[in-house]
């Protein structure tokens, strides 16, 4: 896996807009046939990066490689892009404009029509071919936008908030289509604030904050990296007995009485205490039933990483002002 050329690579991308640095030396690698979560708060620079990949704008410096080769105009037909700000021609029949958009991606008209018909059937909107967007609900329009993004079978799919505007049923439909596309060979870059779906379908992530990449890696590695020495221990016995069994080296995060003589406690080990030593300490006070490590959710990781960033930044600025003073 590591030896394989990534399907997509961004190297030290810098982009400035009239004095404001939108991307500061950002590098990411997306392995082939994976789903890559591009995360970050609003205004972090995700859209700037996505627009550079789509050759809507050019970077000030840095390089984009597709399958090892520098990005060029011909790659357009291999990329599918679903922007966050998306729309359709209101007065044009949806079948016609889907064909038009597919043709712009380089598909021959006839083939575009055939493939689109299949997709329209799959999404159960084949009877809408001759309707205009004015007559559609928002969810319907979203379906058509999704179809026009994938119909030309792009190698690389860039989806910016693909689930917004969908009800849970259609969200699932789109999710399973995304997974299917990956299994068929496509690589997907997914930009979203929906951390639940990141956890569910992403293989790798990168987190961008304030124009810089602050975190990246496999979803599991990132989670391990962010997990603390936090455990949920379920036991028979009283909370008081548990709490008094051992002094120092840990703190109680949460405890819950589950029944008579049956409780669970969430604890955090501090000062380098080993789990083994902690368990030794309590094993005589209560009867341990289960011990589980607490794995942070992507949501938590996102918030913690972004907050860490901003506090460390504040420290830096504080130091600076101190020096000045």
């Amino acid at each position, binding site marked *: 896996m590591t030896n394989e050329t990534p399907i997509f690579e961004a190297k030290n991308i810098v982009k400035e807009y009239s004095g404001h640095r939108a991307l500061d030396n950002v590098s990411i690698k997306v392995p082939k046939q994976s789903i890559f979560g591009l995360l970050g708060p609003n205004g972090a620079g995700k859209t700037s990066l996505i627009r550079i990949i789509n050759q809507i704008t050019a970077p000030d410096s840095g390089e984009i490689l597709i399958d090892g080769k520098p990005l060029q105009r011909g790659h357009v037909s291999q990329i599918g*892009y679903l922007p966050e*700000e*998306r*729309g359709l*021609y209101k007065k044009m029949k949806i079948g016609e404009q889907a064909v038009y958009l597919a043709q712009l991606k380089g598909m021959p008209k006839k083939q575009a029509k055939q493939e689109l018909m299949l997709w329209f059937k799959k999404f159960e909107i084949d009877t809408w071919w001759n309707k205009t967007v004015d007559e559609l609900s928002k969810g319907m329009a979203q379906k058509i936008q999704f179809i026009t993004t994938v119909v030309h079978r792009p190698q690389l799919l860039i989806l910016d908030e693909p689930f917004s505007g969908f009800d849970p049923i259609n969200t699932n439909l789109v999710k399973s289509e995304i997974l299917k596309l990956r299994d068929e060979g496509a690589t997907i870059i997914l930009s979203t604030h929906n951390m639940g779906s990141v956890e569910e379908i992403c293989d790798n992530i990168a987190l961008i904050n304030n124009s810089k990449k602050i975190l990246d890696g496999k979803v599991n590695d990132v989670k391990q990296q962010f997990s603390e020495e936090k455990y949920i221990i379920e036991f028979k016995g009283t909370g008081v007995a548990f709490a008094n069994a051992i002094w120092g080296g840990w703190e109680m995060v949460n405890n819950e009485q589950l029944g008579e003589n049956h409780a669970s406690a969430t604890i955090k080990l501090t000062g380098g205490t080993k789990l083994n030593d902690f368990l030794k300490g309590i094993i005589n006070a209560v009867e341990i039933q289960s011990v589980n490590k607490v794995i942070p959710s992507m949501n938590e990781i996102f918030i913690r990483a972004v907050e860490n960033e901003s506090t460390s930044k504040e420290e830096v600025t504080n130091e600076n002002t101190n020096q000045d003073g």
Partner: protein
Amino acid sequence: MGKIGLIIKREYTTRVKKKSFLLMTILGPILMVGFLVGAIWLGQQEEKDLKILVLDDTYVLSNTLLQSEKYHLTSSQDEGIENIDAGKTFLKESEQYDIFLYLPGNIVSGNASVGKLFYKDAPSSNVQRHLENIVDGSIERLRLKELNISNEDYARLKNKVQLHTIDVISNEEKNVGMRAGVGFIFGLMIYLFIFMYGIQVMKGVIEEKSNRIVEVIVSSVKPFELMMGKIIGIMFVGLTQFIIWVMLSLALTTTLSLTVFPDLMNPENVAQTTQVEQVAVGVTVEPVNSEAKEVGKEFQDLIFNQIPWGLMIGLFIFYFIGGYLLYGSLMAAVGAAVDSETDTQQFILPITAPLIFGYIVAAMAIDNPNSVAVEWCSQIPFTSPIVMLVRVSMGTEGLSWAIVLSMSLLIATFIGTTWVAGRVYRTGILMYGKKASYKEMFRWLRHK
């Protein structure tokens, strides 16, 4: 077909298929021809007879005022009216009289004397002119008598010279004014088309920007291709509409003049409407018909022999396309810089100002085709599409270099404006939710 071809095709077909396009294309010529026919028809309608009360303080004029079929003059003495106030009151109460004409005593003394015309329903300028002519004629006859000149001698004194203008190089006889008029009509059409279709370009850009499809499209094609595709597609819509208009108008006028109004389009009849003005001095009422025939012949000569149609139509298409590309690209930039149509005002004004200025200069050129303003404006690319055709319509001798220069300037300028527009467009279309300032737009020009 390249991607830009796809865009041109979409822009063209969606517009041509619209009901409003069909309606405009068919109704346009019908309305135009209808107005023309209506105007001629109305002009030929008999004006109603007028009964005019004349109070003559000179006591010598009223006897010599000429009566005519439509103008019935009655001396105020017949109604027992002695002064101007009585006359005014009488007119107000009278149902018979339409006009009260007051000729003060001094009207015969000077060369620029003033009388008064009181009315209930405002008379047309024709009526006013006709009555002035009648009074003038009376005063002239009065003076002839004083000077002891016979009417015959006077008729011999009166002369009317016409100067026929002949180009010394081509030895052609031309009617410069009328030819400039034909050129002006061409210029006017270019002006209208640039306006109509320029606005369509702007609206099209705003539509794509506001419904957010633009980001999907620019991920497939370059923003510049999208902009040019739109401009060129709409240009073809304009040309299509123009060609249909010309053909329909020609067909309509030909059928109408052959069937419904066989004599309406006849130059003799057209000339008759001007006959009223020709009455002038009543002493020698010349048969006007020969003159009308003369005008008709001149008109035919103008249409068939003097206007260089091939060149005019060729240049029309060139200047239409050139002017449209120049203004259309600027309009596209405006569309990209704003967020909704209500924000466009500030940017449209500086664009339409030179266009309107060009129109005014072209109108001026009819009277004074060789003025400095016309010469300059037929070179400046922002006005040349409208003004140059007026110059060309008056003859091309010695103009070749000016035409070539004007065309080259226009080409260079529209390449320039297209470049500028492309830069503004490419950044502007992705700026949602705010209107750009001139300063920002200038900065966009330098973006990578």
